[in-house]
Protein backbone atom coordinates (compact mmCIF):
# COMPACT_ATOMS: atom_id res chain seq x y z
CA UNK A 1 0.00 0.00 0.00
CA UNK A 2 1.25 3.44 -0.90
CA UNK A 3 -0.23 5.92 1.58
CA UNK A 4 -1.37 9.32 0.34
CA UNK A 5 0.77 11.97 2.01
CA UNK A 6 -0.49 14.93 0.01
CA UNK A 7 -2.16 17.88 1.69
CA UNK A 8 -3.69 21.15 0.52
CA UNK A 9 -2.75 24.58 1.81
CA UNK A 10 -5.02 27.13 0.10
CA UNK A 11 -4.61 26.58 -3.64
CA UNK A 12 -1.34 24.82 -3.07
CA UNK A 13 -1.10 21.06 -3.23
CA UNK A 14 1.90 19.62 -1.38
CA UNK A 15 3.04 16.07 -2.16
CA UNK A 16 3.79 15.62 1.53
CA UNK A 17 3.21 17.73 4.64
CA UNK A 18 6.84 18.44 5.53
CA UNK A 19 8.41 21.81 4.88
CA UNK A 20 11.43 23.69 6.17
CA UNK A 21 10.90 26.76 8.36
CA UNK A 22 11.77 30.30 7.34
CA UNK A 23 15.25 31.49 8.28
CA UNK A 24 16.57 28.04 9.11
CA UNK A 25 17.19 26.76 5.60
CA UNK A 26 18.84 29.78 4.00
CA UNK A 27 17.90 29.80 0.33
CA UNK A 28 18.17 25.97 0.14
CA UNK A 29 21.41 26.06 -1.87
CA UNK A 30 23.38 25.54 1.34
CA UNK A 31 21.71 22.12 1.81
CA UNK A 32 21.82 20.87 -1.78
CA UNK A 33 24.90 18.66 -1.38
CA UNK A 34 23.59 17.14 1.86
CA UNK A 35 20.11 15.95 0.84
CA UNK A 36 17.62 15.45 -1.96
CA UNK A 37 15.74 18.75 -1.89
CA UNK A 38 13.10 17.39 -4.29
CA UNK A 39 11.70 15.21 -1.52
CA UNK A 40 10.47 18.20 0.49
CA UNK A 41 6.79 19.11 0.60
CA UNK A 42 7.70 22.79 0.26
CA UNK A 43 10.49 25.22 1.00
CA UNK A 44 9.90 28.44 2.93
CA UNK A 45 12.62 31.00 2.22
CA UNK A 46 14.39 33.16 4.74
CA UNK A 47 12.28 36.28 5.33
CA UNK A 48 12.76 38.88 2.58
CA UNK A 49 12.17 42.61 2.92
CA UNK A 50 11.77 45.30 0.29
CA UNK A 51 15.17 46.89 0.92
CA UNK A 52 18.30 44.97 1.97
CA UNK A 53 18.73 44.61 5.73
CA UNK A 54 22.06 44.48 7.51
CA UNK A 55 20.83 42.51 10.52
CA UNK A 56 21.91 42.69 14.16
CA UNK A 57 25.48 42.85 15.47
CA UNK A 58 27.06 39.59 16.67
CA UNK A 59 26.84 37.47 18.77
CA UNK A 60 23.52 36.59 17.17
CA UNK A 61 23.01 33.08 18.53
CA UNK A 62 23.52 31.25 21.80
CA UNK A 63 22.67 27.75 22.86
CA UNK A 64 20.38 27.20 25.86
CA UNK A 65 18.97 24.04 27.49
CA UNK A 66 17.52 21.93 24.65
CA UNK A 67 17.22 25.02 22.49
CA UNK A 68 18.85 28.12 21.13
CA UNK A 69 18.29 31.84 20.99
CA UNK A 70 18.68 33.86 17.83
CA UNK A 71 18.62 37.53 17.02
CA UNK A 72 19.60 37.59 13.35
CA UNK A 73 17.65 40.77 12.69
CA UNK A 74 16.27 39.66 9.31
CA UNK A 75 19.56 40.09 7.44
CA UNK A 76 18.67 39.68 3.76
CA UNK A 77 19.63 41.13 0.39
CA UNK A 78 16.18 42.62 -0.38
CA UNK A 79 13.52 41.41 -2.82
CA UNK A 80 15.31 42.52 -6.01
CA UNK A 81 18.52 40.62 -5.31
CA UNK A 82 16.51 37.67 -3.99
CA UNK A 83 14.63 37.35 -7.28
CA UNK A 84 17.78 37.80 -9.35
CA UNK A 85 20.28 35.69 -7.36
CA UNK A 86 18.39 33.24 -5.14
CA UNK A 87 15.09 32.41 -6.82
CA UNK A 88 16.57 30.80 -9.98
CA UNK A 89 18.12 28.00 -7.91
CA UNK A 90 14.97 27.55 -5.81
CA UNK A 91 12.77 27.36 -8.93
CA UNK A 92 14.86 24.57 -10.39
CA UNK A 93 14.34 22.28 -7.39
CA UNK A 94 10.77 21.55 -8.46
CA UNK A 95 8.99 21.87 -5.12
CA UNK A 96 6.61 24.68 -4.11
CA UNK A 97 8.53 27.78 -3.03
CA UNK A 98 6.90 29.82 -0.29
CA UNK A 99 8.45 33.24 0.03
CA UNK A 100 8.44 34.69 3.53
CA UNK A 101 8.12 38.47 3.64
CA UNK A 102 8.21 41.14 6.29
CA UNK A 103 7.99 44.93 6.26
CA UNK A 104 8.02 48.04 8.40
CA UNK A 105 4.65 49.27 7.16
CA UNK A 106 1.57 48.17 5.24
CA UNK A 107 2.50 49.75 1.93
CA UNK A 108 5.80 47.86 1.86
CA UNK A 109 3.94 44.62 2.57
CA UNK A 110 1.59 45.39 -0.32
CA UNK A 111 4.45 46.29 -2.64
CA UNK A 112 6.26 43.03 -1.83
CA UNK A 113 3.09 41.03 -2.44
CA UNK A 114 2.55 42.75 -5.80
CA UNK A 115 6.10 42.01 -6.89
CA UNK A 116 5.83 38.33 -5.88
CA UNK A 117 2.40 38.07 -7.50
CA UNK A 118 3.97 38.62 -10.91
CA UNK A 119 7.15 36.65 -10.24
CA UNK A 120 7.41 33.28 -11.91
CA UNK A 121 8.31 30.41 -9.58
CA UNK A 122 6.68 31.70 -6.41
CA UNK A 123 3.96 29.36 -5.11
CA UNK A 124 2.82 31.16 -1.99
CA UNK A 125 3.56 34.01 0.39
CA UNK A 126 4.14 33.62 4.10
CA UNK A 127 3.64 36.82 6.08
CA UNK A 128 6.13 37.04 8.90
CA UNK A 129 4.16 39.27 11.25
CA UNK A 130 6.77 39.29 14.00
CA UNK A 131 7.74 42.77 12.85
CA UNK A 132 7.04 45.91 14.89
CA UNK A 133 3.64 47.49 14.28
CA UNK A 134 3.99 51.07 12.98
CA UNK A 135 5.46 53.21 15.69
CA UNK A 136 4.57 50.89 18.57
CA UNK A 137 6.68 48.51 20.59
CA UNK A 138 4.33 45.64 19.73
CA UNK A 139 4.66 43.17 16.89
CA UNK A 140 1.91 43.19 14.28
CA UNK A 141 0.85 39.67 15.24
CA UNK A 142 0.58 40.64 18.91
CA UNK A 143 -2.37 42.84 18.00
CA UNK A 144 -5.55 41.45 16.46
CA UNK A 145 -6.48 44.68 14.69
CA UNK A 146 -3.04 45.16 13.17
CA UNK A 147 -2.96 41.51 12.07
CA UNK A 148 -6.34 41.95 10.39
CA UNK A 149 -5.21 45.19 8.71
CA UNK A 150 -1.98 43.78 7.23
CA UNK A 151 -3.48 40.46 6.09
CA UNK A 152 -6.41 42.32 4.51
CA UNK A 153 -4.10 44.66 2.63
CA UNK A 154 -1.87 41.87 1.32
CA UNK A 155 -4.87 39.66 0.48
CA UNK A 156 -6.19 42.39 -1.81
CA UNK A 157 -2.82 42.63 -3.55
CA UNK A 158 -2.17 38.99 -4.42
CA UNK A 159 -3.86 35.91 -5.83
CA UNK A 160 -1.13 33.66 -4.46
CA UNK A 161 -1.83 31.36 -1.53
CA UNK A 162 -1.38 33.45 1.58
CA UNK A 163 -0.02 32.00 4.82
CA UNK A 164 0.05 34.12 7.98
CA UNK A 165 2.80 33.28 10.46
CA UNK A 166 2.07 34.18 14.06
CA UNK A 167 4.22 34.98 17.04
CA UNK A 168 3.48 32.87 20.12
CA UNK A 169 4.24 35.85 22.39
CA UNK A 170 0.56 36.66 23.04
CA UNK A 171 -2.01 35.98 25.73
CA UNK A 172 -4.71 34.71 23.35
CA UNK A 173 -3.38 33.02 20.20
CA UNK A 174 -6.90 32.12 19.05
CA UNK A 175 -7.89 35.79 18.93
CA UNK A 176 -4.98 36.65 16.60
CA UNK A 177 -5.60 33.57 14.43
CA UNK A 178 -9.25 34.57 14.00
CA UNK A 179 -8.23 38.09 13.01
CA UNK A 180 -6.05 36.57 10.26
CA UNK A 181 -8.80 34.27 8.98
CA UNK A 182 -11.33 37.10 9.07
CA UNK A 183 -8.98 38.90 6.70
CA UNK A 184 -9.03 35.82 4.44
CA UNK A 185 -5.66 34.25 5.00
CA UNK A 186 -5.46 30.79 3.39
CA UNK A 187 -3.52 29.24 6.25
CA UNK A 188 -1.93 29.99 9.60
CA UNK A 189 1.59 29.03 10.44
CA UNK A 190 2.90 28.90 13.99
CA UNK A 191 4.92 29.16 16.10
CA UNK A 192 7.61 31.70 15.52
CA UNK A 193 10.22 31.92 18.29
CA UNK A 194 9.55 32.81 21.94
CA UNK A 195 11.08 36.06 23.20
CA UNK A 196 13.84 35.06 25.56
CA UNK A 197 17.18 36.00 27.04
CA UNK A 198 20.49 34.49 28.21
CA UNK A 199 22.76 36.16 30.75
CA UNK A 200 26.48 35.80 31.49
CA UNK A 201 26.62 36.24 35.27
CA UNK A 202 30.37 36.91 35.35
CA UNK A 203 30.60 39.63 32.73
CA UNK A 204 27.06 40.69 33.73
CA UNK A 205 26.15 41.06 30.11
CA UNK A 206 23.42 39.53 27.99
CA UNK A 207 24.85 36.75 25.81
CA UNK A 208 23.25 38.22 22.67
CA UNK A 209 24.36 41.63 21.40
CA UNK A 210 20.69 42.38 20.78
CA UNK A 211 20.01 41.62 24.51
CA UNK A 212 16.93 39.51 23.75
CA UNK A 213 16.34 36.88 21.08
CA UNK A 214 13.94 34.16 20.01
CA UNK A 215 13.96 30.72 21.60
CA UNK A 216 13.56 27.70 19.30
CA UNK A 217 14.24 23.97 19.39
CA UNK A 218 13.03 21.02 21.50
CA UNK A 219 12.58 23.30 24.55
CA UNK A 220 9.54 24.98 22.97
CA UNK A 221 7.79 21.91 21.56
CA UNK A 222 5.17 21.40 24.30
CA UNK A 223 4.06 25.06 24.12
CA UNK A 224 4.05 25.01 20.33
CA UNK A 225 1.93 21.85 20.35
CA UNK A 226 -0.59 23.44 22.68
CA UNK A 227 -0.85 26.53 20.46
CA UNK A 228 -1.20 24.52 17.24
CA UNK A 229 -3.91 22.42 18.89
CA UNK A 230 -5.71 25.51 20.17
CA UNK A 231 -5.60 27.35 16.83
CA UNK A 232 -6.53 24.35 14.69
CA UNK A 233 -9.75 23.88 16.66
CA UNK A 234 -10.50 27.61 16.48
CA UNK A 235 -10.18 28.29 12.73
CA UNK A 236 -11.28 26.54 9.53
CA UNK A 237 -8.09 27.09 7.53
CA UNK A 238 -5.14 24.68 7.61
CA UNK A 239 -2.51 25.17 10.29
CA UNK A 240 1.19 24.66 9.59
CA UNK A 241 2.78 23.58 12.85
CA UNK A 242 6.36 24.04 13.98
CA UNK A 243 8.45 24.43 17.09
CA UNK A 244 11.09 21.92 18.13
CA UNK A 245 10.38 19.30 15.48
CA UNK A 246 13.50 17.12 15.33
CA UNK A 247 12.21 13.78 14.07
CA UNK A 248 9.22 11.80 12.82
CA UNK A 249 7.64 11.35 16.27
CA UNK A 250 7.64 15.11 16.86
CA UNK A 251 6.10 15.75 13.43
CA UNK A 252 3.39 13.13 13.99
CA UNK A 253 2.49 14.73 17.33
CA UNK A 254 1.85 18.07 15.60
CA UNK A 255 -0.24 16.42 12.89
CA UNK A 256 -2.34 14.52 15.42
CA UNK A 257 -2.77 17.74 17.42
CA UNK A 258 -4.21 19.46 14.35
CA UNK A 259 -1.44 20.57 11.98
CA UNK A 260 -2.15 19.97 8.29
CA UNK A 261 1.55 20.42 7.56
CA UNK A 262 4.68 20.80 9.65
CA UNK A 263 7.96 22.68 9.32
CA UNK A 264 11.42 21.78 10.56
CA UNK A 265 13.49 24.73 11.82
CA UNK A 266 16.32 24.34 14.31
CA UNK A 267 16.23 20.60 13.58
CA UNK A 268 17.96 21.24 10.24
CA UNK A 269 20.99 22.68 12.05
CA UNK A 270 21.42 19.51 14.11
CA UNK A 271 20.67 17.16 11.22
CA UNK A 272 20.56 18.91 7.82
CA UNK A 273 18.46 16.11 6.32
CA UNK A 274 16.01 15.84 9.26
CA UNK A 275 13.13 17.14 7.09
CA UNK A 276 13.35 14.47 4.41
CA UNK A 277 13.99 11.75 6.98
CA UNK A 278 10.67 12.83 8.51
CA UNK A 279 8.95 12.47 5.11
CA UNK A 280 10.17 8.86 4.93
CA UNK A 281 9.32 8.32 8.59
CA UNK A 282 5.71 9.48 8.17
CA UNK A 283 5.34 7.25 5.11
CA UNK A 284 6.61 4.23 7.07
CA UNK A 285 4.34 5.05 10.02
CA UNK A 286 1.23 5.23 7.82
CA UNK A 287 2.16 1.96 6.14
CA UNK A 288 2.75 0.22 9.45
CA UNK A 289 -0.54 1.53 10.86
CA UNK A 290 -2.36 0.75 7.59
CA UNK A 291 -3.57 4.33 7.29
CA UNK A 292 -4.28 5.16 3.63
CA UNK A 293 -4.44 8.91 3.85
CA UNK A 294 -2.59 11.39 6.05
CA UNK A 295 -5.85 13.35 6.22
CA UNK A 296 -7.16 10.64 8.58
CA UNK A 297 -4.49 11.60 11.09
CA UNK A 298 -4.72 15.39 10.95
CA UNK A 299 -6.39 16.64 14.12
CA UNK A 300 -7.24 13.08 15.17
CA UNK A 301 -6.40 13.79 18.80
CA UNK A 302 -9.01 12.43 21.19
CA UNK A 303 -9.93 15.25 23.50
Amino acid at each position, binding site marked *: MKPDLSVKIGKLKLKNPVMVAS*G*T*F*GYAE*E*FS*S*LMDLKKLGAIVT*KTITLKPR*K*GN*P*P*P*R*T*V*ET*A*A*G*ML*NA*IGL*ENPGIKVFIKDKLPFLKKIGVPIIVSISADNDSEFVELAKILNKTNGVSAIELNLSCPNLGTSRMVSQLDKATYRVVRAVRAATKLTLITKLTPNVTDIGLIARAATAADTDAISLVNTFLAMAVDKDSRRPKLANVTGGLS*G*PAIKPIALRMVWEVSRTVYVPVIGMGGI*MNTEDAMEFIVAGATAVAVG*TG*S*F*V*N*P*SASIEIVDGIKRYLQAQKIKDIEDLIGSIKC
Partner: protein
Amino acid sequence: MIQIKAKLIKNIEVAPNYYKMVLDAPAIACAAKPGQFVNILAGDKFEPLLRRPFSIYNVNDSKLEILYRVVGKATELFSKKKPGEKLNVLGPLGNGFDLKTKKAKILLVGGGIGIAPLVFLAEKLTGKEILALIGAKNKKHILCVDELKDAGAQVKIATDDGGIGFKGSVTDLLKQSVRPKDKIGVIFACGPKPMLKEVAYIAKKHKIEARLSLEEHMACGIGACFGCVVNTTRGYKRVCKEGPVFDAREVIF
Protein backbone atom coordinates in the same frame (compact mmCIF):
# COMPACT_ATOMS: atom_id res chain seq x y z
CA MET B 1 30.55 18.96 2.09
CA ILE B 2 29.05 15.76 3.47
CA GLN B 3 27.55 14.38 6.66
CA ILE B 4 28.98 11.08 7.91
CA LYS B 5 29.11 8.84 10.96
CA ALA B 6 32.84 8.61 11.59
CA LYS B 7 34.45 5.99 13.76
CA LEU B 8 36.65 7.30 16.55
CA ILE B 9 40.06 5.68 16.28
CA LYS B 10 41.94 7.52 18.98
CA ASN B 11 41.15 10.14 21.66
CA ILE B 12 44.05 11.05 23.92
CA GLU B 13 44.92 13.85 26.32
CA VAL B 14 48.00 15.58 24.88
CA ALA B 15 48.30 18.33 27.53
CA PRO B 16 46.22 19.18 30.60
CA ASN B 17 42.69 19.62 29.21
CA TYR B 18 43.83 19.40 25.57
CA TYR B 19 42.86 16.35 23.54
CA LYS B 20 43.57 14.96 20.12
CA MET B 21 40.97 12.83 18.39
CA VAL B 22 41.47 10.79 15.26
CA LEU B 23 38.44 9.90 13.18
CA ASP B 24 38.05 7.54 10.28
CA ALA B 25 36.53 9.90 7.74
CA PRO B 26 37.91 9.21 4.24
CA ALA B 27 35.52 11.43 2.26
CA ILE B 28 36.13 14.45 4.48
CA ALA B 29 39.87 13.84 4.87
CA CYS B 30 40.53 13.73 1.15
CA ALA B 31 38.57 16.91 0.44
CA ALA B 32 39.97 18.91 3.38
CA LYS B 33 42.10 22.03 2.95
CA PRO B 34 44.08 23.80 5.71
CA GLY B 35 41.93 26.32 7.59
CA GLN B 36 38.69 24.47 6.96
CA PHE B 37 36.67 23.02 9.81
CA VAL B 38 34.17 20.30 10.64
CA ASN B 39 30.96 20.54 12.67
CA ILE B 40 30.54 17.66 15.10
CA LEU B 41 27.56 16.52 17.15
CA ALA B 42 28.41 15.69 20.75
CA GLY B 43 25.25 13.91 21.85
CA ASP B 44 22.26 12.21 20.30
CA LYS B 45 19.75 13.31 22.92
CA PHE B 46 19.70 17.00 21.91
CA GLU B 47 21.75 18.00 24.93
CA PRO B 48 23.91 19.77 23.99
CA LEU B 49 21.71 20.55 21.02
CA LEU B 50 23.90 22.05 18.33
CA ARG B 51 27.01 20.80 16.56
CA ARG B 52 30.35 22.27 17.55
CA PRO B 53 32.93 23.59 15.06
CA PHE B 54 36.56 22.40 15.13
CA SER B 55 39.44 23.20 12.83
CA ILE B 56 40.88 20.37 10.83
CA TYR B 57 44.12 19.78 12.70
CA ASN B 58 45.49 17.34 10.17
CA VAL B 59 44.60 14.61 7.72
CA ASN B 60 46.37 11.33 7.35
CA ASP B 61 45.16 9.25 4.41
CA SER B 62 41.58 8.49 5.37
CA LYS B 63 41.94 9.89 8.88
CA LEU B 64 40.86 13.23 10.19
CA GLU B 65 42.53 14.71 13.26
CA ILE B 66 41.10 17.28 15.66
CA LEU B 67 42.93 19.06 18.45
CA TYR B 68 40.56 20.41 21.07
CA ARG B 69 40.44 22.05 24.45
CA VAL B 70 37.79 21.10 26.98
CA VAL B 71 35.82 24.26 27.80
CA GLY B 72 32.22 23.18 28.26
CA LYS B 73 29.46 20.67 27.73
CA ALA B 74 30.27 19.34 24.27
CA THR B 75 34.04 19.24 24.59
CA GLU B 76 33.65 17.51 27.98
CA LEU B 77 31.51 14.83 26.29
CA PHE B 78 34.03 14.46 23.46
CA SER B 79 36.85 13.91 25.95
CA LYS B 80 34.95 10.92 27.38
CA LYS B 81 34.39 9.17 24.04
CA LYS B 82 36.11 5.85 23.50
CA PRO B 83 37.69 4.42 20.35
CA GLY B 84 35.10 2.52 18.35
CA GLU B 85 32.30 5.01 19.08
CA LYS B 86 30.81 6.85 16.12
CA LEU B 87 30.55 10.60 15.77
CA ASN B 88 28.29 12.53 13.42
CA VAL B 89 30.60 14.83 11.44
CA LEU B 90 29.72 17.47 8.85
CA GLY B 91 32.45 18.85 6.64
CA PRO B 92 34.76 20.04 5.33
CA LEU B 93 33.34 23.53 5.87
CA GLY B 94 34.47 27.10 5.24
CA ASN B 95 36.94 28.62 2.81
CA GLY B 96 40.30 27.60 4.30
CA PHE B 97 43.57 29.49 3.99
CA ASP B 98 44.55 30.90 0.62
CA LEU B 99 48.04 29.37 0.21
CA LYS B 100 49.24 31.69 -2.55
CA THR B 101 52.08 34.03 -1.58
CA LYS B 102 54.46 36.11 -3.67
CA LYS B 103 57.36 36.10 -1.23
CA ALA B 104 58.96 32.99 0.24
CA LYS B 105 58.95 34.01 3.91
CA ILE B 106 55.88 33.06 5.91
CA LEU B 107 54.95 33.74 9.51
CA LEU B 108 52.50 31.54 11.41
CA VAL B 109 51.05 32.88 14.65
CA GLY B 110 49.04 30.60 16.95
CA GLY B 111 47.65 31.52 20.34
CA GLY B 112 46.41 28.78 22.67
CA ILE B 113 44.19 26.28 20.89
CA GLY B 114 44.54 28.55 17.83
CA ILE B 115 47.53 26.42 16.96
CA ALA B 116 45.08 23.77 15.71
CA PRO B 117 44.92 24.63 11.99
CA LEU B 118 48.56 25.70 11.62
CA VAL B 119 50.33 22.32 11.38
CA PHE B 120 48.24 21.19 8.39
CA LEU B 121 48.85 24.63 6.88
CA ALA B 122 52.64 24.39 7.40
CA GLU B 123 52.66 21.00 5.70
CA LYS B 124 50.93 22.40 2.63
CA LEU B 125 53.13 25.51 2.36
CA THR B 126 55.82 23.64 0.50
CA GLY B 127 58.94 25.47 -0.66
CA LYS B 128 58.44 28.31 1.81
CA GLU B 129 60.58 29.59 4.63
CA ILE B 130 58.28 29.29 7.64
CA LEU B 131 58.66 30.81 11.08
CA ALA B 132 55.98 29.65 13.53
CA LEU B 133 55.30 31.67 16.67
CA ILE B 134 53.27 29.84 19.25
CA GLY B 135 51.95 31.21 22.47
CA ALA B 136 50.39 29.64 25.54
CA LYS B 137 49.90 30.14 29.25
CA ASN B 138 52.81 27.92 30.28
CA LYS B 139 55.19 25.20 29.16
CA LYS B 140 52.61 22.41 29.60
CA HIS B 141 50.27 24.01 27.09
CA ILE B 142 52.81 24.44 24.31
CA LEU B 143 51.71 22.03 21.61
CA CYS B 144 52.77 20.94 18.17
CA VAL B 145 56.41 22.04 18.30
CA ASP B 146 57.68 18.76 16.81
CA GLU B 147 54.90 18.60 14.24
CA LEU B 148 55.69 22.13 13.06
CA LYS B 149 59.40 21.33 12.89
CA ASP B 150 58.66 18.17 10.93
CA ALA B 151 56.73 20.33 8.47
CA GLY B 152 59.91 22.33 7.97
CA ALA B 153 59.07 25.32 10.14
CA GLN B 154 61.36 27.11 12.53
CA VAL B 155 59.55 27.48 15.87
CA LYS B 156 59.61 30.21 18.50
CA ILE B 157 57.69 29.98 21.74
CA ALA B 158 56.10 32.57 24.02
CA THR B 159 54.64 31.78 27.44
CA ASP B 160 52.85 34.09 29.85
CA ASP B 161 55.10 32.96 32.72
CA GLY B 162 58.32 32.70 30.70
CA GLY B 163 58.70 29.07 31.78
CA ILE B 164 59.89 28.33 28.27
CA GLY B 165 60.85 30.66 25.41
CA PHE B 166 59.95 34.34 25.33
CA LYS B 167 58.17 35.72 28.41
CA GLY B 168 55.11 37.55 27.25
CA SER B 169 52.41 37.35 24.65
CA VAL B 170 52.80 35.80 21.24
CA THR B 171 52.02 39.18 19.68
CA ASP B 172 54.92 40.77 21.57
CA LEU B 173 57.05 38.00 20.13
CA LEU B 174 55.60 38.82 16.71
CA LYS B 175 56.58 42.49 17.09
CA GLN B 176 60.16 41.39 17.74
CA SER B 177 60.14 38.95 14.86
CA VAL B 178 59.03 41.19 12.01
CA ARG B 179 62.10 43.04 10.86
CA PRO B 180 61.71 45.28 7.82
CA LYS B 181 64.56 43.59 5.93
CA ASP B 182 62.83 40.20 6.17
CA LYS B 183 60.34 40.76 3.34
CA ILE B 184 57.62 38.60 4.81
CA GLY B 185 55.02 37.38 2.32
CA VAL B 186 52.07 36.58 4.56
CA ILE B 187 51.23 36.22 8.24
CA PHE B 188 48.77 33.41 8.92
CA ALA B 189 47.19 33.61 12.37
CA CYS B 190 44.64 31.81 14.52
CA GLY B 191 43.78 32.46 18.16
CA PRO B 192 41.59 34.53 20.45
CA LYS B 193 40.07 37.74 19.09
CA PRO B 194 42.29 40.19 21.06
CA MET B 195 45.35 38.40 19.68
CA LEU B 196 44.05 38.55 16.11
CA LYS B 197 43.27 42.23 16.50
CA GLU B 198 46.86 42.84 17.58
CA VAL B 199 48.21 40.73 14.68
CA ALA B 200 46.09 42.76 12.26
CA TYR B 201 47.49 45.98 13.73
CA ILE B 202 51.12 44.82 13.51
CA ALA B 203 50.62 43.52 9.97
CA LYS B 204 49.08 46.81 8.86
CA LYS B 205 51.92 48.80 10.41
CA HIS B 206 54.52 46.78 8.53
CA LYS B 207 52.41 46.59 5.36
CA ILE B 208 52.35 42.81 5.47
CA GLU B 209 49.37 40.83 4.33
CA ALA B 210 47.72 38.82 7.13
CA ARG B 211 45.15 36.05 6.85
CA LEU B 212 43.23 35.48 10.06
CA SER B 213 41.13 32.49 11.06
CA LEU B 214 38.17 33.81 13.09
CA GLU B 215 35.65 32.24 15.45
CA GLU B 216 32.02 33.04 16.12
CA HIS B 217 29.20 31.11 17.73
CA MET B 218 27.69 28.88 15.07
CA ALA B 219 24.27 27.30 14.79
CA CYS B 220 24.35 25.61 11.37
CA GLY B 221 27.97 25.92 10.17
CA ILE B 222 26.88 25.77 6.54
CA GLY B 223 25.79 29.32 5.77
CA ALA B 224 22.07 28.87 6.33
CA CYS B 225 21.25 30.74 9.53
CA PHE B 226 23.34 33.95 9.27
CA GLY B 227 24.14 33.53 12.95
CA CYS B 228 27.94 33.58 12.81
CA VAL B 229 28.68 36.93 11.19
CA VAL B 230 31.70 39.14 11.69
CA ASN B 231 31.75 42.82 10.79
CA THR B 232 33.93 43.58 7.76
CA THR B 233 34.54 46.44 5.37
CA ARG B 234 32.14 44.62 3.01
CA GLY B 235 29.41 44.40 5.69
CA TYR B 236 28.56 41.41 7.87
CA LYS B 237 30.09 38.19 6.55
CA ARG B 238 29.43 34.62 7.69
CA VAL B 239 32.44 33.09 9.44
CA CYS B 240 31.28 29.60 8.42
CA LYS B 241 30.87 30.43 4.73
CA GLU B 242 32.88 33.47 3.61
CA GLY B 243 35.36 32.56 6.41
CA PRO B 244 36.68 31.37 8.77
CA VAL B 245 39.74 32.90 7.10
CA PHE B 246 39.58 36.63 6.36
CA ASP B 247 42.09 39.16 5.11
CA ALA B 248 43.10 41.22 8.17
CA ARG B 249 42.48 44.48 6.28
CA GLU B 250 38.79 43.78 5.90
CA VAL B 251 37.96 42.72 9.46
CA ILE B 252 36.50 45.46 11.67
CA PHE B 253 37.44 44.50 15.22
